[in-house]
């Protein structure tokens, strides 16, 4: 396990470096150079040169990369081209919306789908088991923003129970107020996520129920639920853990859509605006933080999976 930890950590580091290079290269491919964002169409050549010098676009690409990377190593993400505000604090403020949104939705979806998935598998002959299976099919087909639009129209505009969009100006100063703003977004994300998670948990439960080891445990006098609890939970968890990692990462990165629906000042909407404004430092900063989060989620999921299943410790990457 220690060998695995070391190898997996090295893999984390290497993939992070690859990702950073990829982000940098991708952004150089954007039409024009970063200085365009600062200028109007009527700019004189002198103004263009000055702007290029300001953002460092006049220097060689490798030098630009090393400068950026050196700053990153000191957790300095630079300043926005547009607002001149430092990127780091802006991202931190945005995360105070996106992280609670992601984690709470994830927790709600996990609880709902665990119950629903096990019920769908064990009661596949009852009407409610079939109903759950049917609903879980919708998970991959329903766009998140559509669910959001419908929920807003019913619960915010129609019934006026909750705010339809926005987030308190003073952030979490009044937690109840902030949570009220996040309720509909959380329900939206959790609804869609639990539908797709239910499919995986149902299928893992079915695999466990049909397994030989469960039958042998029962052949030695173990009751069905005892055998399911002792042997089924761990075995069923192995495939589910990697799915959970992927779902969590997807939700974190996919927050851009739900943040748009509900007008939330999160990381996703920051990225969207930065892309529209060609605000390179902001784009790079958001991607840097997102990549870090996603790679760490993958790292934790892989470690957790190998703690449960010793057979996997022989292979290095996420796929078995």
């Amino acid at each position, binding site marked *: 396990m220690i060998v695995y930890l070391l190898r997996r950590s090295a893999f984390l580091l290497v993939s992070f470096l690859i990702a950073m290079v990829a982000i940098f290269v991708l952004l150089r491919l954007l039409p024009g150079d970063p200085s365009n964002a600062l200028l109007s169409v009527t700019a004189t050549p002198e103004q263009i040169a000055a702007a290029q010098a300001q953002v460092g676009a006049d220097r060689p690409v490798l030098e630009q990369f090393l400068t950026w990377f050196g700053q990153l190593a000191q957790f300095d993400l630079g300043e926005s081209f547009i607002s001149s505000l430092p990127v780091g604090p802006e991202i931190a403020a945005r995360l105070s919306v996106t992280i609670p949104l992601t984690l709470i939705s994830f927790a709600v979806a996990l609880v709902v789908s665990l119950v629903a998935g096990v019920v769908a598998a064990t009661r596949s002959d009852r009407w409610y088991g079939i109903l759950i299976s049917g609903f879980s099919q919708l998970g991959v087909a329903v766009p998140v923003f559509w669910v959001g639009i419908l929920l807003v129209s019913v619960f915010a505009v129609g019934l006026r129970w909750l705010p339809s969009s926005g987030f308190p100006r003073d952030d979490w100063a009044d937690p109840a107020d902030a949570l009220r703003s996040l309720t509909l977004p959380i329900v939206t994300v959790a609804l869609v996520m639990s539908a797709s998670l239910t499919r995986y948990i149902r299928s893992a439960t079915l695999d466990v129920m*049909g397994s030989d080891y469960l039958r042998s*445990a*029962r*052949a*030695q*006098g*173990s009751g069905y639920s005892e055998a399911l609890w002792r*042997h089924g939970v761990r075995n069923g968890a192995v495939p589910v853990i990697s799915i959970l990692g992927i779902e969590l990462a997807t939700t974190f990165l996919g927050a851009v859509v739900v943040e748009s629906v509900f007008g939330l000042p999160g990381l996703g909407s920051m990225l969207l605006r930065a892309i529209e404004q060609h605000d390179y430092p902001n784009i790079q900063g958001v991607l840097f933080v997102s990549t870090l989060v996603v790679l760490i989620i993958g790292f934790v999921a892989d470690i957790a999976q190998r703690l449960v299943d010793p*057979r996997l410790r022989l292979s290095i990457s996420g796929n078995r």
Partner: protein
Amino acid sequence: MTLLSVSSLGVTAPGGRALVSDLSFDLAAGKRLGLIGESGSGKSVTSLAVTGLLGAGLVATGSVLLDGVQVVGGAERRLVPLRGRVASVVFQEPLTALDPLMRIGKQLAEPLARHRALRGAALRVAVSEALAEVSLDDARIARAYPHEISGGQRQRAAIAIALSSRPQLLIADEPTTALDVTVQAQIVSLLDNLVEARGMALLFISHDLAVVSAMTNDLIVMSAGVAVERGTVAEVLSAPKDPYTAQLVRSARDLDAMLGER
């Protein structure tokens, strides 16, 4: 009262296809019986029907009396006390029959704790005794996961688990099929000795005439879910009445001859 009494047992698949039909036999305490037939002949399904462990959708009819309790249509809570204590099973594929995520020692401790009410140090001693009984003396085996030991060791562990509850009847469902030929012989003789020493009854299921005749004297030949022949090994070998049995005997002889020539 006979330990196991099967009469007119039938098992049907979800589509209504009969996997076993009209099968009857008795097995008294301490006696042995072989069930032989090709794959798909219904012999493994029979072993599951006897212990009430048929998979979802499979339906049993007729009667199976295990220690006087009706297994066919019996409530799960009445069957659970029978399993392990009265009848225990060794399955064909130890790699999947053992929980892949649990150490061997812990899997063995589970039935020991349940049936013999052992805890703590006494349980640990019982685990290593049970492993020693199947010639797994290496202390590392108890700490190993199933994938970390050999196929023969896994089957020995599975036998230790099946015997840990001190059953009156051991059902061995193709216990050597997944193993190498040399390991097969070791497992057969291990089972033979253990069943003899404990005075257990044995229901031995196999497709291999040579293996069955090493274990039992009485056998039933099954084909397409029906018992086509029954009698002692000598009777079946010398005068096979059914064409399928004749073919089985012929191929066993060919194999013997081939092995003899080497």
